[in-house]
């Protein structure tokens, strides 16, 4: 007998509980203690329960119910299947860590009152849950919009600052442009039946060009949420503006709802993807991966750096999606399953490691009040907990074995190495070259992470006030430890994770996964090729060699250590300003990838009395695409503004004329 009778009802109950916790925040909106010490930990427990329920129901058969809430004659349909369970697991597990951290984080009442913040935060969580469970376009769009709006309010917590209002506006704008595309995509997918339940869409038979239209609209809409280039501009603005737990939630979890939506539309609602769709997704994915990581390397704001890194990672996920579509489209479902495993695995990994890094920056921000890398440094001495836990996230993000980032990268590269078997001439030669871009992006990610960790936590403090920095509190530490453990578990136990992904992948690709007869510690993706990886053995071997080396050195050689000032070449006076700044560390990337950037440099001449050196890195896409578009919109608005007279009689006249014209058209 299953442990839980109906996982779907349990999930809905927990989501409703989130809503109630949010509302409870309004009982005592000004009380930091009540909200922080009681409600946020409760929300974390709720997330943990959701993760457990979703995790246990991964292999359970799908179930659906119709809720009575909603408009008359338009009930909300809910459905839970393996795909939804997986993303609910991600949502629950990641949000548990983030909520615990948030409990300690929202200490001071700044900007929005804590109670209101609690409401927005939990509505945000609940709406993400509903997005994953929705089984008709109406419920999906309502949840999707709730998610966008609640996160907008969270982004603009510090609404006193003009730049934060601007960031929030940009986020809201692109979220809505994307939502329109998703709505249109649903409109195409109903296929003339005018039934907007997902069941009807699954049954509809679309002509190939209409299916392609629906796919491309969905790619645009979900791509805007995922931050695919060129729809990425909101991400590096909104993430730094939001409080750190919210950034973690947005980057770690909300971006994954876009991945979920894309998988739902492509493999479930449309059903039979054509292989060339995959090429479109692959191209955008690869370009986003490279673009994101190159920009991340030249950032000076730590949260902007992480935001660009999210663009990179979502690019990798969409690359996996594209590869999966190509494989399944040409009739190689077992390879498609491999690519799907890679992309789902990377989604899980990214949720944990990016949340961990964002929370780490949150702790630093909290303790120093500084987001600029150029004013940090040496924090490993003052904040050892945060530093070492962040190091785990940074190493995972850099894709180093035996942590989790490496596993999904490994799977993705394995999938790429099969792509020369695609029976399409020319394509089978271009696809493996994508592995080159993945390799480049992965190596650059290591560069970015060394910069991120090294400049913040290592070296000398660049400012005097950093000596007062304090380590994170207990609740914050628990949140960080939870996410770091997630990184370790996902990295060391890939066979269990893939076993859990099995039902999802089989649902999406329609292929029975070949059951490799490998022991639990050995990851063998496809048995017909001799390639295997065992992180547990790798980790143990690494630990053993380190131990033996240490022991041998201790045994055979003396342990005398002297502390001395660092070598200053005999000149004396090594100051903190002699270290690389964030700009300095990014200089090679700026130099090598200069065509990517719109660089503005201010170089002093030898005769300047007050020499000043400044460099700013602009986004070419912003300058070439968004600014002209914005100008165009403003110009159009200026030409029609005379319609807006502000007198009610004029508007009534417009209505009258419109009615007359409509009548004329109808009759």
């Amino acid at each position, binding site marked *: 007998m299953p442990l839980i009778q109906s996982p779907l009802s349990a999930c809905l109950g927990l989501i409703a509980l989130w809503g109630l916790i949010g509302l409870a925040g309004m009982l005592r909106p000004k009380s930091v203690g009540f909200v922080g010490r009681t409600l946020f930990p409760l929300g974390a427990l709720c997330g943990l329960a959701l993760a457990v329920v979703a995790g246990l129901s991964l292999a359970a058969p799908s179930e659906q119910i119709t809720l009575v809430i909603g408009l008359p004659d338009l009930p909300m349909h809910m459905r839970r299947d393996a795909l939804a369970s997986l993303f609910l697991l991600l949502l629950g597990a990641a949000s548990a860590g983030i909520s615990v951290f948030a409990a300690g984080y929202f200490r001071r009442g700044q900007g929005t009152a804590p109670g209101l913040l609690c409401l927005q935060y939990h509505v945000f969580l609940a709406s993400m849950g509903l997005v994953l469970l929705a089984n008709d376009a109406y419920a999906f769009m309502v949840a999707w919009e709730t998610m966008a709006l609640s996160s907008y309010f969270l982004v603009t917590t510090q609404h006193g600052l003009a730049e934060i209002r601007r960031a929030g506006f940009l986020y809201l704008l692109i979220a809505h442009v994307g939502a329109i595309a998703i709505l249109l995509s649903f409109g195409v997918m109903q296929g003339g039946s005018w039934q907007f339940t997902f069941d009807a869409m699954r049954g509809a038979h679309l002509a190939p060009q209409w299916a392609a239209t629906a796919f491309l609209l969905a790619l645009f809409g979900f791509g805007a949420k995922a931050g695919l280039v060129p729809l990425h501009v909101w991400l590096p603005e909104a993430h730094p503006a939001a409080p750190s737990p919210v950034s973690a939630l947005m980057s770690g979890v909300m971006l994954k709802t876009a991945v979920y939506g894309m998988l739902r539309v492509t493999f479930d609602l449309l059903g039979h993807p054509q292989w060339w769709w995959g090429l479109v997704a692959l191209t955008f994915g690869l370009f986003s991966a490279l673009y994101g990581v190159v920009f991340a390397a030249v950032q000076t704001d730590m949260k902007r750096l992480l935001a660009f890194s999210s663009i990179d990672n979502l690019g990798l996920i969409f690359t996996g999606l594209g590869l999966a579509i190509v494989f399944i489209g040409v009739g190689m479902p077992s390879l498609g399953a491999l690519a799907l495993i890679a992309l789902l695995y990377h989604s899980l990994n990214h949720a944990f490691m990016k949340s961990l890094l964002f929370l780490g920056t949150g702790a630093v921000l909290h303790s120093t009040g500084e987001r600029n890398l150029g004013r940090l440094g*040496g924090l*490993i001495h003052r904040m050892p907990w945060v530093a070492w836990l962040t*190091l785990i996230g940074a190493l995972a993000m*850099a894709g*180093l*074995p035996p942590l989790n980032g*490496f596993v999904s990268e490994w799977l993705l*590269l*394995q999938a790429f*190495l099969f792509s020369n078997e695609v029976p399409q001439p020319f394509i*089978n*030669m271009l696809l*493996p*070259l994508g*592995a*080159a871009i993945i*390799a480049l992006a*992965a*190596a650059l990610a*290591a560069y970015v*992470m*060394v910069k991120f*960790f*090294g*400049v913040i936590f*290592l*070296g*000398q403090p660049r400012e005097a006030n950093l000596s007062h920095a304090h380590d994170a509190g207990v609740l914050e530490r628990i949140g960080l430890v939870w996410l770091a453990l997630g990184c370790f578990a996902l990295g060391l136990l890939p066979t269990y994770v893939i076993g859990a992904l099995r039902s999802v992948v089989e649902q999406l690709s329609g292929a029975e996964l070949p059951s490799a007869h490998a022991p639990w510690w*050995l990851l063998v993706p496809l048995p017909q*090729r*001799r*390639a*295997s*990886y065992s992180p547990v*053995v*790798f980790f143990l071997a*690494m630990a053993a*060699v*380190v131990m033996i*080396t*240490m022991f041998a*050195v201790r045994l055979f050689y*003396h342990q*005398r*250590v*002297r*502390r*001395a*000032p*660092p*070598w200053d070449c005999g000149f004396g006076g*090594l100051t903190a300003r*002699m270290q*690389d700044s964030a700009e*300095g*560390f990014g*200089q*090679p*990337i700026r130099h*090598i990838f200069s065509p990517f950037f719109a660089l503005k440099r201010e170089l002093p001449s030898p005769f300047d009395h007050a020499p000043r050196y400044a460099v700013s890195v602009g986004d070419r896409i912003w300058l070439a695409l968004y600014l002209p578009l914005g100008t165009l919109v403003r110009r159009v608005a200026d030409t029609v503004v005379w319609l807006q007279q502000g007198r009610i009689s004029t508007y009534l006249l417009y209505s009258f004329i419109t009615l007359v014209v409509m009548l004329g058209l109808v009759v």
Partner: protein
Amino acid sequence: MKPIEIITQVLELIAALAAAPLFLGWINQCRAWLQNRRAPSLWLPYRGIRKLFHKDAVIAERASPLFRMAPYIVFSAMVLAAAIIPSMGTELPFTKAADAIALVGLLAMARVFLSLAAMDIGTAFGTLGARREMMVGFLAEPALLMVIFVASLISATTALPAIAENLATQHLGLYPSLAFTAVAFTMVLLAENARIPIDNPATHLELTMIHEAMMLEYSARHLALMEWAAALKLFNYACIGFALFIPWGISTGEGGPGTLLASIPLLAVKLTVAGAGLAFIETVSAKLRVFRAPEFLAAAFLFAVLGMLVHLLLGA
């Protein structure tokens, strides 16, 4: 696990640990001969390491535990890498746990820890070295990965022993793709091991140095481990090259212990020739400005990509 597998594994590890400084000494000797200098002793690297182990460690006042951990991690990563690369035999039990991509990840881990340790003290040289090392690394790593991918596509596996076995047991066919990747690999080897066109292992306190800049704060046993690790890295790279491009004579486990024994002198011959070749390349080429290093490495990357394209076009 068969006893022959364990013997091969242990033998390879010992050979790598013992022979890596010797290989370095041999290169230095060849270089001295080519440059009309009196050659240093072949055993000089060993003496250097021994001397360093006996000294008192001097550690900068503001060093964090990361700084003291890094030499052990870097050294262990190189030892582990030696366990993955088939230098004498392909019957290596540990390679099941880590394939060629994991090997590249392992090398990346060593590089990341080396750079982080260099940034830990917060001196100008350390951060400069770390930045340059990461710059070289992010271009060299994908090039190495592409080189490995070409060999993987030919052999339909990413397990290094299987690649070496497949290439060794095939009839002597010429793969044009491997010719391109061999060029790329040589360039990567030079760059990653701080050899001449990119870095000069013989200079100190020069504005162009990379690897030595990161080592400045290390002393005694930590420095000894780092130098040994650097020698191991060079040895490992040479063995990767042998496994991919001249795997002939490697013991595949079918011939029994005899072939394993026969592969030992063969490896010595390969190393001797490769060391002389490296010394020759280093003698005839000039050190590039740091600004030109990305061009050199981008060329390596493009050679490797070209190799892959050639493989996909010609199927060879």
